[in-house]
């Protein structure tokens, strides 16, 4: 049998809802691991991508400097990079802060907001810095596919990945992108 395809997943500025929905493929995950081997992913707790990964699924938008590094690592390793879900594609809910200047966001959270004890802006080299705006991932790296939905359904993940594994251009029939 041919070598398995490698797949890596991560959540940047996301809620892990897309990952949860991915797991909604239920028992088909047994079939999936016949084709794919999971590389870096919260599911495996592997911390970094292998040198060569076939498919990278990115959930969430780019909110801070760590997101940028993670995204760039994925882009470097993954042959096919996929923006998964509303936040990766458009910035989504976290991008609602784009309407408020970052100064005000930080001040409200750490300095002036109600019930704050010992007000100070967190400062440590281990803490990622916030970007002044939240960006969809295609504004930072080249993205090969967009898997829409908030979240995309388990069936959409299944269809997408099995198409890709079969060497076909992934297509989502209307039923899989029709949300109400």
């Amino acid at each position: 049998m041919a070598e398995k395809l490698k797949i890596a997943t991560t959540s940047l500025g996301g809620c892990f809802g897309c990952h949860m929905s991915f797991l909604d493929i239920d028992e088909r995950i047994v079939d999936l691991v016949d084709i794919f081997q999971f590389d870096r992913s919260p599911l495996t707790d592997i911390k970094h991508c292998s040198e060569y990964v076939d498919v990278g699924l990115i959930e969430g938008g780019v909110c801070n400097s760590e997101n940028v590094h993670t995204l760039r690592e994925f882009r470097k390793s993954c042959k096919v990079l996929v923006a998964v879900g509303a936040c990766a594609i458009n910035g989504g809910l976290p991008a609602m802060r784009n309407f408020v200047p970052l100064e005000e966001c930080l001040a409200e959270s750490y300095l002036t907001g109600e019930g704050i004890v010992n007000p100070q802006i967190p400062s440590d080299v281990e803490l990622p810095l916030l970007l002044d705006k939240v960006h969809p991932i295609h504004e930072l790296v080249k993205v090969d596919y967009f898997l829409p939905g908030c979240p995309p359904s388990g069936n959409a993940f299944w269809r997408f990945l099995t198409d890709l594994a079969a060497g076909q251009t992934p297509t989502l029939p209307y039923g899989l992108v029709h949300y109400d």
Partner: protein
Amino acid sequence: MTWSESKQEKVLTIVCKHEKRQTRLLQILREVQEEFHCVPRYAIEIVAAELGLSRTKVEGVVQFYSLLSLEQQGRFHILFSDSITDQFQGSRKLMDYMSAKLGVKPGQTRSDGKVSLGFTSCTGLCDQGPAGLVNGHWISRLNESQIDRIVDMVEREVPVSSWPLEFFHVEDNIQIPGLLLQSPIEQGEALKQSVRQGFDEIFIEVTRSGLRGRGGAGFEAAWKWRFCAEGPEDYSGLSLVGRNERYVVCNADEGEPGTFKDRILLNSNAHQVIEGMTVCAGVVGAKQGFIYLRGEYYRLRPKLEAILANRRANNLLGKSILGRNGFDFDIEIHMGAGAYVCGEESALIESLEGKRGVPRVRPPYPIDRGYLDQPTVVNNVETFAAVAAIAAYGGAWFATHGTEKSKGSKIISISGDCERPGIYEYDFGISIAEILMDCGAENTLAVQVGGPSGGVISGKEYHRKLAFEDLGTGGSFMIFNKKRDILEIVRNFTHFFAHESCGFCTPCRVGTTLLKNQVDKICDGHSTALDLVGLTSLAKFIKTASHCGLGQSAANPVLGSLSHFPQAYKDRFKDVVFEPGFDLDESLETARQMSLRDDPWAHLEQ
């Protein structure tokens, strides 16, 4: 806090002056804006209550039109034209100069409430720019010394009505008159001829002339009139006794950047335009007409009102025109308020009805269901001027000029890099090369025919001809020489469409902004070959998926320049696969400062 009684009284007076008619909403709001330098919340509530509209409806209208504002503007509100030709004449620099002198940034109102600055799309003075508006009044040929004087008068609070007239001096600037401009009709000539011959005969003359609409689309005028005259009653078999009203509308919302021919026609040939409307009314059986005058042409209004009054006094408007029983027709002027999309006829009609200028779904076309759902003819200013000439001199006279499919002449407004910008009138069929020669254009890189929504042509196509069957235009003719950067032009046009999108349909509302961001990315030097792939597919999508002409043409500057000047794009590309369109490290600056960090982990490479 409640509003003082005197302020409430002022709003009520305005509302009553307009007989509390919902169709006058936009006119009411314009006057409120003029009085208070904004449309205050309290005024919105009064207007809504008096007109029987919801508050949100009224506020929605305020937010739609760029010359209306919910925010307080200065007692002197100064707008600079942001059209590309004004930019190339140094408008941005002059704005910086003025902004520094007054101590207020564009888009803001100074804290003392005296003055506010801003940009507006195009003021229709491209031949005598850099131009702008002070409290709605034109100011042209701006330079630093003039701005010094303006700033001085603003600081001393000299009311605009007392400013020296030279500030508002605007020339017609006719360089080459042609068929229409050379032989203007005598006042009443066309109408006398029409009454003598009968309107059926005049309709035949208009048909014979082959006149096509001068706004750009080029629909045959006579066809439009016939459909309007016949109207929906004929299809449904209703008797003519219960006939609907008919309306005649003159589209003077000349908003396409680079177009200013209607400014001249309305300034110097308004009699002829109005006479053309009256002839049309006689043919289609309309009792009421409107001139929809773009907000930026505010200064023309008093003159037009005087001409209307004069014509009423001479029995050329009003009841039983020229003594013909039953020939009643009058005209109202409706002011626009800074919305390019209202040049689209169905959006214009929405605006005439006092609503947001959102284009309607067509069909039904205005000729079937237009103003107040009644059959309505909407024609361009120049079309009506031509109608009057045709009625006076005959269709054959007109049809001997021009080409097979484009009869007569076209008035074009030339601006940009040439020695003699201004108004030129040619018989259809003239080549671009001849026009360039006439206006003294040298080293021409490109000509934008028909404004941002039209098309760009480059050197190898200057043999092409001005005619509906080749290069159609509503009148805008912008010339750019080889010192100009084509991508800066594309950027200006793309920003224009993103600003003017009415927001009704998603492909245009979202698409024009995405397009703007992409073009900015290219101009700012962050683009790669890959961006072009996305840009092209986005442009094609906007063109095919948008609801109205605005969206369908919003990508023309990108698509046109890509096919004519691909090298201009390639020259900007970086030799990497991809790069963000913004300064990544800079976007960490706020967080760095607030957390007092500057370690290596607090920075990002582009």
